[in-house]
């Protein structure tokens, strides 16, 4: 890797010679510093002027400013929320937080689903199966050619055509699909479930440790012990045992049609689902192309070497091609993740209350447009930088390590 000095004796010779800064225009270092100070100074002055002038204008136009509205009672109704919300007592700050959580929810699920589908489609396009390759190719080409907003409106209109609640499609008395969304039974949460969840986490950690142990032993001794029995007992057996020991409580909150609508149970709303569907279908097509190009970037010789060793096709893909393709895939994949997150703001068109939707309503009710827009920008900037930071970390993690 760069920066690694091979021969310590060379170190002194390689380091740039130390030299003193001369306060003279003929010194390039001095010139560089002066220019940077001047440019930063100008930028600060410009920002100062713009902010000051904006404030003067807002004052002259009698427009309220500041973020005090965040603490004011919101009064705006919100359709779906991951945390409790009551418009009569909760603040605009909380309403905006709900918007951020809704954005994160749809983006996170969307990223996972689009990655899985995109990877499968990308591999499918390279398949030797003529039909599979053509079908996936058709999907990718069509979906990328239609504007996302249109696709969202299409999915939303399609979901509107589901039957009315009374005529909903149902699985027994538990699951109902209607134009009000998908209604599912919800587990009534008990402490035992919390402990079982904790056991699951412990089991997952145990599995990772066991897996590492097995690999070390294989590398050292060549003996490979099976992973699955241990993993299964840790991941399923342990949580089940904990839950059973605590009395195995199990009761469901069932959705039931009462009056206009289903009461009880959990809901996946048509707005959420249409947005998720639209984002996943659209982004998966791009991810498929990223995956395809990544796979094709791995030289054919690698595959051929794999088959020469008598490896199974699937094994070649999983063990030889994909790990190398990943290095090519990750940077463009990151920008797809960023796109998906930002595209989720089209939610306003179909009534899903993401951060843009709630911030729009807030700035409308309070009249504080600049603060509202600044809030939206700060939220997207934070989410985008976090995704980039994580993907860069992951990219470094899978990058070729110079040995």
């Amino acid at each position, binding site marked *: 890797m760069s920066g690694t000095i091979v021969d310590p004796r060379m170190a002194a010779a390689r380091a740039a010679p130390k030299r003193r800064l001369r306060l003279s225009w003929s010194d390039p270092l001095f010139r560089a510093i002066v220019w940077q100070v001047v440019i930063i100074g100008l930028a600060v002055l410009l920002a100062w002027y713009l902010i000051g002038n904006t404030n003067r204008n807002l004052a002259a136009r009698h427009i309220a400013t500041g973020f005090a509205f965040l603490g004011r009672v919101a009064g*705006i*109704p919100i359709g779906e929320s991951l945390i409790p919300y009551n418009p009569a007592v909760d603040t605009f700050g909380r309403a905006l937080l709900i918007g951020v959580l809704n954005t994160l929810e749809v983006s996170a699920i969307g990223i996972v689903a689009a990655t899985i589908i995109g990877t499968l489609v990308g591999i499918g396009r390279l398949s030797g199966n003529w039909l599979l390759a053509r079908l996936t190719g058709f999907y990718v080409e069509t979906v990328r050619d239609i504007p996302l907003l249109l696709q969202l409106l299409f999915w939303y209109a399609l979901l509107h055509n589901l039957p009315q609640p009374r005529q909903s499609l149902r699985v027994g008395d538990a699951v109902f699909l209607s134009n009000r969304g998908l209604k599912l039974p919800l587990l009534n949460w008990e402490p035992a479930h919390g402990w079982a969840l904790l056991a699951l986490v412990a089991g997952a950690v145990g599995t990772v440790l066991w897996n590492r142990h097995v690999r070390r032993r294989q590398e050292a001794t060549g003996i490979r012990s099976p992973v699955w029995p241990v993993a299964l007992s840790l991941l399923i057996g342990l949580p089940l045992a904990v839950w059973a020991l605590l009395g195995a409580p199990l009761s469901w909150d069932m959705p039931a049609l009462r009056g206009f609508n289903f009461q009880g149970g959990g809901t996946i709303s048509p707005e959420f689902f249409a947005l998720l569907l639209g984002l996943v279908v659209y982004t998966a097509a791009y991810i498929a192309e990223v995956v395809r190009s990544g796979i094709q970037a791995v030289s054919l010789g690698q595959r051929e070497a794999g088959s020469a060793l008598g490896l199974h096709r699937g094994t070649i893909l999983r063990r030889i091609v994909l790990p190398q393709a990943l290095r090519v895939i990750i940077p463009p994949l990151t920008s797809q993740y960023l796109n998906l997150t930002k595209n989720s703001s089209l939610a306003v068109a179909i009534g899903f209350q993401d951060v843009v939707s709630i911030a729009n309503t807030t700035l409308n009710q309070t009249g504080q447009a600049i603060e509202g827009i600044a809030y939206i920008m700060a939220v997207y900037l934070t989410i985008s930088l976090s995704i980039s930071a994580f993907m860069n970390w992951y990219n470094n993690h899978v990058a070729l390590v110079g040995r």
Partner: protein
Amino acid sequence: MSGARTIDEGEFTSMKFARSLYLCVLMFSLSLTTVQPASAQGSGSATLDAIRARGQLLCGTAGTTPGFSLPDSQGVMRGLDADSCRAVAAAATGDANKVKFVPTTTQNRFTALQSGEVDMLSRGTTWTLGREGNLGLEFAWVNYYDGTGFLVKKSAGVKSAKELDGATVCVAPGSTTELADADFFRINNIKFTPILIQDVSELQGAFLSGRCDAYSTDASALATFRFSQGPKAEELVLLPDIISKEPLGLVVRKSDDKWFDIVRWTFIAMITAEEKGITSKNVDSFMDSKEPDIRRLLGLEGDMGKALGLDNKWAYNIIKQVGNFGEMWDRSITPMGVPRGINNLWTKGGLQYAPPIR
């Protein structure tokens, strides 16, 4: 939507584009322009000077609401809100046709006005303290005294809004309606799920397709929307409950008092004309009237127009070209089957009362 006009995808996208454009314009205009005192020359109203220089009034309308503002089959904007713009144009420029109708949504209307994108709003905007106190705007007059109502499908069998427990309600985000609904359901200890969609035709589509049990907005807009459904109107019921006060007004920016006066007195002139029985048809026959009130109104004496920075024929132009307040109502609202009610003159049990022009 009615057959006359549907919002297509391109238009929708461009509306969204326009929305972000408004915000950009607002940000830029606020950050780059310098504060200007009202100019010493000219009319004393920066807005009026700009309209005269431009030769056009920029009037923010909805463009989606039958009876209020909706283009007819020839593309001419029709309705009470549209004619309200024309009346102001007649006063300001002498020609009721010197108006450009700028489409605004429930969400972007205030930024459009604040940024100077439009000179005034005439789009069913409720007069509230918050909007005058925080937004730097003020309401010059009320052209429709309204209230929030609910439209439901007849098949739901609902007779009163209090029976809407558990219902899903379609509402425009950023409206006073969403606040009124939240209050109403809370006070009555019942629950509702709001569906908030920015684009009005998408919102109405969600209601018609059955995604929502009720569509809630100003009762006037509900009545005209129901009417515009043609034969299907029979399947829709406007519930009798009116759950809030929604005085829909004409809105201007706060920093131009002269312009505020012009918009306000335009409506007072139209109501005065109705009180006196002066219409677009018979106004010329009043030009030899001996009644001082009428002579001042029509600019025959008193220099009332000059006081506003206008031509003394300002009110004559309004009445001749647009008509009096009742004519405006009868042209747009009466055909929709909505009774005049509290929007009548005070002498007929309504709320419209014109302070004296003198």
